[in-house]
């Protein structure tokens, strides 16, 4: 901590076990950056944390409007937490629109820090405030801190020879400084970050550092802020290890690089920019020194086409996209099914249909991934459950693709992609060995005794076909999307052969080895298990688990299971489902997993669905579970 901010404070410090803060402002106010920095400080401090960035699809939506509000919510605690939190304890509102858009989420008693400079009549009228909410009593019951953030920032930067407008841009750093004081966050990281970020503009760097410190000092000296808070590090929440904070898209990118290294295959990404998947393209394009080739294609179809072409050439082919992109790629995915080449299709799901809600989350591509192709074209599906888990899920999807020579869907979503959490950094030695064998010679003896290479002669165990890459002498062969003769791979229109090939491709996917589903079902006081099972998939893991904890704390009994493999399902899934009186399936769609479960296992799985572009709130889910228990 620097000299300026290190004076001993005489103010009271209160201990809290957890806090939920939401930063909200215009989409040009730098709220995502502010939230990211506060998150980094919090991670470095050692709290457990979970974040929820929420921003409009427009880059700079009209200033001061409700649709233009961008927010970042952070939940941090001295214990293990699972979600970004249902309702903020603290709201930082940079303008009237930010206040209006977020106030309904705040419980009474919450603290609100408002930038009073922006509460001019016109700005308030723009979002429907006829009178000032700061004066008309509508915020009674909240603890409001009116702070002229803009004026204070400009004042603090008057030595820097910046115009008022430019100086005012640092107000987010002033707010960050103030919040950093309130919650006793370490500040060195942010100062270092600012100096690196603006390395080419040292004056701007120093101005931002000055605004940040001014915010800290403001908290320290102003009477309005009588108390600061301490949230102790979550030392007991974490197993031993080295940690960093990581977002889902970053973890997924690292997972792909790791998969390529562990498979000893060069990574080839063919991709077309699309929200919220583009960050993976950005990240991977920075790691060319790992032999990673990134190809920004002319469209979604070319993205997967190039990845498939590279896979034919022996690369680990990957394409990254979101729902609308998957729709465009469907035909090529079908080709990959027919060619039986390894390929990863990463779908960062967002609100649909069509363009839908590009920056909001949803899980409504499950059935598209499962069935969205012509013909019988089964594709394995793997879904990560937390931001950090995106790393492991990428390795698992790669294992399946390489072992079974098949395209594999990796279904993440906007919430996982942009949200972040502490992640225990794995040792490279812990990572799975994903090396695979290319075909090197003939694999079949013809009737006349000559040796031949048959591209569709399968491994009897996995049913995978050999991967013979161009450049291998003697294995020249032709593959394509027309039905192939079993074994030889030559074109075949024979009815019996087609029947055999369709069933064999299905059998190969059905036979993929996936771990059994684990069920968390602690014995009740009577020694019996729960009668209600809650089962989810993907990013609902955090909210469901938080809800389950609440129910159990209140004395309710509920079992929980979470699916990582959606195709094929774990072998014991049917047995698990049939072991409970009621099965509740929370999903951010209109019941796609429950549809699959009902169809496959003839169980009365009850969907609980939400499609508002946001993750579930733990409290609501807890209520749903309680209902299921009480009326079971």
């Amino acid at each position, binding site marked *: 901590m620097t000299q300026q901010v290190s004076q001993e404070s005489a103010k009271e410090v209160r201990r809290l076990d957890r806090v939920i803060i939401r930063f909200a402002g215009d989409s040009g106010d730098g709220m995502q950056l502010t939230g990211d920095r506060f998150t980094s400080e919090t991670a470095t401090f050692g709290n457990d944390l979970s974040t929820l960035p929420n921003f409009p699809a427009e880059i700079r939506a009209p200033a001061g409007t409700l649709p233009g509000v961008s927010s970042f919510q952070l939940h941090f605690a001295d214990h293990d937490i699972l979600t970004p939190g249902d309702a903020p304890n603290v709201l930082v509102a940079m303008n009237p629109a930010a206040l209006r858009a977020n106030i309904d989420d705040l419980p009474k008693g919450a603290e609100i820090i408002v930038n009073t400079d922006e509460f001019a009549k016109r700005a308030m009228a723009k979002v429907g405030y006829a009178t000032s909410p700061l004066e008309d009593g509508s915020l009674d019951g909240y603890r409001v801190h009116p702070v002229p953030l803009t004026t204070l920032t400009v004042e603090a930067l008057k030595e820097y020879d910046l115009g008022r407008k430019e100086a005012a841009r640092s107000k987010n750093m002033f707010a960050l400084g103030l919040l950093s004081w309130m919650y006793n966050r370490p500040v060195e990281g942010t100062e270092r970050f600012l100096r690196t970020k603006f390395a080419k503009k040292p004056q701007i760097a120093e101005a931002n550092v000055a605004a940040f410190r001014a915010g800290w000092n403001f908290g320290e000296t102003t009477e309005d802020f009588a108390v600061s808070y301490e949230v102790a590090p979550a030392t007991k929440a974490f197993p031993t290890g080295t940690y960093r*904070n990581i977002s889902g898209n970053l973890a997924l990118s*690292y997972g792909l690089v790791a998969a390529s290294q562990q498979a000893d295959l060069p990574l080839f990404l063919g991709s077309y920019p699309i929200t919220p998947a583009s960050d993976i393209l950005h990240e991977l394009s920075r790691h060319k020194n790992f032999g990673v080739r990134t190809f920004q294609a002319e469209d979604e179809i*070319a993205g997967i*086409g190039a990845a498939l*072409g590279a896979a034919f050439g022996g690369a680990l082919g990957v394409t990254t996209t979101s729902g609308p992109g998957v729709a465009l790629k469907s035909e090529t995915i079908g080709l990959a099914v027919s060619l039986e080449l390894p390929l990863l299709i990463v779908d960062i799901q967002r609100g649909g249909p069509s363009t839908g809600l590009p920056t909001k989350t949803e899980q409504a591509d499950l059935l598209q991934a499962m069935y969205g192709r012509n013909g019988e074209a089964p594709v394995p599906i793997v879904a990560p459950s937390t931001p950090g888990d995106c790393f492991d899920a990428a390795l698992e999807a790669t294992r399946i693709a390489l072992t079974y020579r098949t395209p594999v869907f990796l279904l993440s979503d906007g919430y996982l992609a942009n949200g972040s959490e502490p992640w225990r950094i*794995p040792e*490279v030695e812990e990572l799975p060995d994903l090396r695979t064998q290319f075909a090197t010679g003939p694999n079949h003896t013809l009737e006349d005794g000559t040796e031949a290479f048959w591209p569709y002669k399968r491994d009897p165990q996995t049913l995978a076909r050999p991967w013979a890459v161009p*450049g291998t002498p003697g294995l020249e062969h032709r593959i394509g*999307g027309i039905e192939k003769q079993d074994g030889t791979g030559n074109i075949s229109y024979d009815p019996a052969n087609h029947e055999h090939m369709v069933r064999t491709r299905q059998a190969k996917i059905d036979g993929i080895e996936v771990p059994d589903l684990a069920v968390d079902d602690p014995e009740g006081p009577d020694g019996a298990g729960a009668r209600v099972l809650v089962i989810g998939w993907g990013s609902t893991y955090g909210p469901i688990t938080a809800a389950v904890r609440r129910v159990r704390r209140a004395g309710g009994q509920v079992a929980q299971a979470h699916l990582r493999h959606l195709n094929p399902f774990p072998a014991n899934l049917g047995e698990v489902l049939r072991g409970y009186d009621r099965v509740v399936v929370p999903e951010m769609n209109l019941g796609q997993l429950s549809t699959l479960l009902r169809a496959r296992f003839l169980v009365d799985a009850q969907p609980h669905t939400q499609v508002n572009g946001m993750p579930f709130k733990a409290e609501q889910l807890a209520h749903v579970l309680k209902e299921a228990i009480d009326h079971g």
Partner: protein
Amino acid sequence: MADVLAQGDRERAPHPLALVPKTEVKQTAKDFKSDQEVRWCPGCGDYAVLAAVQGFMPELGLARENIVFVSGIGCSSRFPYYLSTYGMHSIHGRAPAIATGLAAARSDLSVWVVTGDGDALSIGGNHLIHALRRNVNLKILLFNNRIYGLTKGQYSPTSEPGKLTKSSPMGSLDAPFNPVSLAIGAEASFVARTVDSDRKHLTEVLRAAADHPGTALVEIYQNCNIFNDGAFEVLKDREQAQEAVIRLQHGEPIRFGLPAEDGLGSKGVVRDPASGELEVVDVAEHGTDGILVHDAHAQSPTLAFALSRIADPDTLHQTPIGVLRDVRRPVYETLMTEQLETAVHKNGKGDLGSLLHGNDTWTVAG
């Protein structure tokens, strides 16, 4: 634009086969025939092209396993099945995209794309133009028969306007593409045109394409004897062809028609000084001054484009064949490989452990 490439750019346009392993065994056309029965209609122009390609491949002296043919959908796209190289018969229009990924990942392969007018110019138009502008090391053979064959005779994007087909009983309303003009407009570094039945010319053009660093587009006028028979007859008939075909040779005056006294064609192509348009003149009247000399290596695409427009779209009279454009510019995968090498040079070979660690970590002790 400068005529001479900077030294660095020359290095970025190495010979396309520089990294492809050679064979020490002498090859013949037979070595490039697969065991599959060829299933085009009897009399189809595709047979001639297949024979020419099989006959030409040994000339390259490449290890056969390092050659890949990728195709889309359509009659011509069955091509890979009949060659004993590696091959992929993919989906409609996507062959350039798939081949781009393969070529970008594997500089040691000679990658060929076989496509048709519907495949390349209709459903796959986007991939074609982007492959051309990127200058990926692909040799694209575009079989143009000006009709949809495999779907049984609908008009194609190169069919003449007013064409009567099953899907245009009152005549097609579409204005056609000129594939050569389109390719030049798409920044192609190599564009040529040839005819299925002229084995010698076809082979010469294949040779020039194989020698070209980057994407080479070869339009092959190919006869569909079932649905569009005789579409290029005027270019094939010995007598008519003398007037109809302009054979382009780099460095030679652009002359065609019945031989004049000097043994070259009696007609020549000149540029009208007032309008800048190309004109065909009678050499006897005009004299040989001002007759354009073909320069396929000109950096400016202006003349090549003008030549691509000189044919009469209805009669195909004055159709230029040969290499219209052949210029050097950096090859996509060479640049890509260079970036990978630069990254290693600057940051060292990637270390997974330090990547995963990053800069902001904390430790939880037991």
